[in-house]
């Protein structure tokens, strides 16, 4: 659909629609009376995959889940500071025991009271999945430092009689949950704020089994009204929630609507926002319209886009080869042509918003094809064929991959492109039946804003064959991150120092080819307004949270 004619038509039509909307404005204003619920209507370009914390992996699913469920700990609505969610907490001096005290008289939206046993059930369930989640509990590993995890994870499904969960999870008295860890972890509270740690109602899970998804119940400010899977989900205010804010709008989310169609509906005034990140062809239309430009918002996110190297074999087990690729890629060109300068160039594994980011590292590998050629020669590369595996599901990715292929060819590297459906869906290195790739386009979006989430998951030995896509490792790097990961939050300064040093090593040893940081952007209608004291656009573009509907109000329009 990306042909120039279509674009011109849209731009012309946008003007006409704007006039029409102005003309119709007076009549429409009366429809949002005091008793008719206000509606936030918008769409996703993909499915909402799940409402079950055991199956949760993606940002889209997080949008409704964040509103339906609560976690024990949550992020402040305006910042990345952690604050009590369903519970307040204390930490033992050795940093290994957390005691959570649940808020009093909290009820699920179906009226069931929330108990300490429900919390324990939810955490045990997400650690291993249950019979209904086909053996997959993608975020179970996040709780693997709780005492008794291994025994429980390997216990079989269903678990043997008598085994009820991890021994590190106990309730010393009603309303209190105690969690014992094997080692102290500064980021444990962040893990308790993940959607996977959402508290579910065990009675509802057991009652609906396989159909739990469409009957999900939580304690959040919204409740699920209906879900026609793959098409539309409707959320209604949960007036009994402790997070409920008077006057919450109803939320209607369409699934699988292409961004071109979504833009038309947005321009027609049907959609409250255009959910980002916007594809570059949509962004081009935004730039072409002063009205859309005034409704456009953008932030750089805690996410990275990079190329991983298969370091388990030649030639990329050689640091010179990896450095050569870094020098050969013109990152500024990609930033300008693909992202339209909507984000930063990536200079190191951590994005700028994460403590541990090393500001002294600035463009470590400036574009230098001559240097790249020299390094290739030193490395003894003589034009052997290399495979570059990349996600071909988005036109922007295809264009980027082609630019990179051309640039590598310019310094003498023979690279063949292999498209795959989406980022991260690659042949695993450990049991690869089809011959290996050499370069893989990879990305990472924070689970929580802590350096450990990036460096441990993406570059540690423990993550070989999984999230450390190319199995890169370095002894000194490994030592530094292992030390920093095990320090309690009280020693944050030491942690940051360790991570900064580790960053330096990953950059020098060219662990990856660094491309750019992720960004998020959105079009938001002027009639969507923050409730109360909510500042700026934090209710929409929060650094960790997805849009917080409870803080949005629909003005007359």
């Amino acid at each position, binding site marked *: 659909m990306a042909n120039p004619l279509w674009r011109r038509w849209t731009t012309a*039509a946008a003007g006409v629609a704007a006039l*029409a909307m102005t003309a119709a404005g007076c009549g429409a204003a009366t429809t949002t009376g005091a008793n008719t619920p206000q509606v936030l209507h918008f769409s996703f370009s993909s499915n909402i995959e799940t409402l079950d914390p055991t199956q949760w992996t993606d940002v889209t699913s997080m949008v409704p889940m964040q509103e339906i469920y609560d976690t024990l700990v949550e992020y402040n609505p305006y910042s990345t500071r952690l604050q009590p969610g369903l519970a307040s907490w204390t930490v033992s001096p050795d940093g290994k025991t957390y005691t959570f005290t649940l808020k009093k008289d909290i009820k699920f939206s179906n009226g069931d009271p929330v108990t300490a046993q429900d919390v324990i059930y939810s955490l045990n369930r997400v650690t291993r999945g249950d019979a209904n989640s*086909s053996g997959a509990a*993608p975020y179970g590993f996040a709780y693997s430092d709780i005492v008794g995890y291994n025994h429980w994870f390997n216990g079989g499904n269903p678990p043997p009689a008598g085994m009820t969960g991890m021994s590190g999870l106990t309730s010393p008295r009603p309303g209190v949950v105690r969690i014992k860890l094997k080692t102290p972890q500064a980021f444990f509270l962040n893990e308790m704020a993940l959607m996977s740690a959402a508290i579910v109602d065990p009675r509802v899970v057991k009652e609906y089994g396989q159909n739990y998804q469409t009957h999900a119940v939580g304690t959040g400010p919204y409740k699920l009204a209906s879900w026609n899977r793959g098409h539309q989900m409707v959320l209604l205010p949960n007036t009994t929630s402790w997070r409920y804010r008077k006057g919450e709008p109803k939320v209607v989310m*369409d699934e*699988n609507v292409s961004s071109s169609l979504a833009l038309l509906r947005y321009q027609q005034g049907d959609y409250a926002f255009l959910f980002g990140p916007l594809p570059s062809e949509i962004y081009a239309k935004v730039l072409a319209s002063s009205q859309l430009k005034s409704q456009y918002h953008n932030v750089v996110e805690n996410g990275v886009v990079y190329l991983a190297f298969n370091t388990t074999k030649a030639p990329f087990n050689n640091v010179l080869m990896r450095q050569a690729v870094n020098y050969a890629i013109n990152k500024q060109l990609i930033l300008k042509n693909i992202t339209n300068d909507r984000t930063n160039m990536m200079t190191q594994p951590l994005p700028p918003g994460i403590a541990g980011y090393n500001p002294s590292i600035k463009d470590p590998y400036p574009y230098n094809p001559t240097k790249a050629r020299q390094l290739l020669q030193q490395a003894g590369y003589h034009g052997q064929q290399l495979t570059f595996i990349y996600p071909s599901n988005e036109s922007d990715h295809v264009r980027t991959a082609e630019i990179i292929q051309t640039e590598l060819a310019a310094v003498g590297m023979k690279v063949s492109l292999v498209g795959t459906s989406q980022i*991260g869906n690659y042949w695993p290195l450990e049991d690869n039946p089809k011959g290996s790739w050499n370069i893989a386009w990879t990305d990472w979006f924070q689970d929580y804003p802590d350096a450990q989430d990036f460096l441990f998951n993406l570059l540690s030995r423990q993550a070989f064959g999984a999230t450390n896509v190319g199995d890169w490792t370095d002894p000194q790097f490994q030592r530094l991150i292992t030390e920093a990961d095990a320090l309690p939050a009280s020693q944050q300064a030491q942690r940051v120092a360790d991570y900064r040093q580790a960053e330096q090593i990953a950059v020098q040893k060219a662990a990856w080819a660094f491309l750019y940081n992720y960004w998020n952007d959105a079009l938001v209608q002027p009639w969507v307004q923050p409730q109360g004291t909510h500042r700026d656009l934090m209710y929409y573009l929060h650094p960790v949270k997805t849009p917080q509907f409870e803080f949005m109000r629909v003005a007359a329009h």
Partner: protein
Amino acid sequence: MGSYLVRRLFWTVITIWAILTVTYFIAYLVPSDPARLIAGQHASAATLASIRRALGLNRPLWYRYLVFANQFIHGNLGYDFIMRRTVAGQVLQAAPLTFYLAVVAVCFELIIGIPIGIIAAVKRYSFVDNFLRFLSILGISMPTYWVGSMLLLLVAFKLGWLPLGGVSASGVILPALSVGITGSAFYARILRSSTLETMRMDYVRTARAKGAKESLVLFKHTIRNSLIPVITYLGLDLGALLGGLIVTETIFNWSGLGFLLNQAIGNDDGSLIMGVTLFSASAIVIMNLVVDIVYAFLDPRVSYS
């Protein structure tokens, strides 16, 4: 006729089996790891291993193929990777929508195509004929996605007469019309040439000679006979539409089979791709069979001894 049916049914089964096999192995050639698709990018090695075990992905390819074929025979298409719902259930949910759209689309094709074909034949080589032939070449040349986008922009967005995509009673009009506009050209051309051919037949001359009115000659003697190739094409067309509305359904957010397939390909969801492909291919193969049989009833000269 009986032995013909048996032979045709036999080859229908063989064709579907061939489709199953080819699709299965093509799906395997794509560099993709279902365990990663299910677990997401952030999963640990232990989680990935447990999913591979649960799905039997650690078994050899031929073994998985046999398991799949066996399930298919029993009407079980397995579960999709992303949402873990039954594939058969999703296909059966989407199929009626595609069927509805395809039938309305074919109606539009006929409503537009038949009058154009007849007028072009009756007024052959005139300005009207040339103009209509130009229109039909234009129709064939315009890609559906372009016509669809234009209809969306003009009728739904600018004029606001019909919904901007989505499934609804009136929402079927624009997608069906965009298929109708581009598809009608084929009908017009087929009907024009078959009408011209029929007009030269002896029985038409006889009808005229016995003094029948021109309209009677045209509608009773000529057009009824020249519709036979149109009906043949209609069957094949309907079969193809049932399996091939990917672009139209995606543009109009019409959640039928093509829409489902597009999503499945985008997600590299092997089992869903297999399910939709097998269903659509079977629809085409079966429509072919039906056309051949109907043909025999329509045209007494055709015999299958």
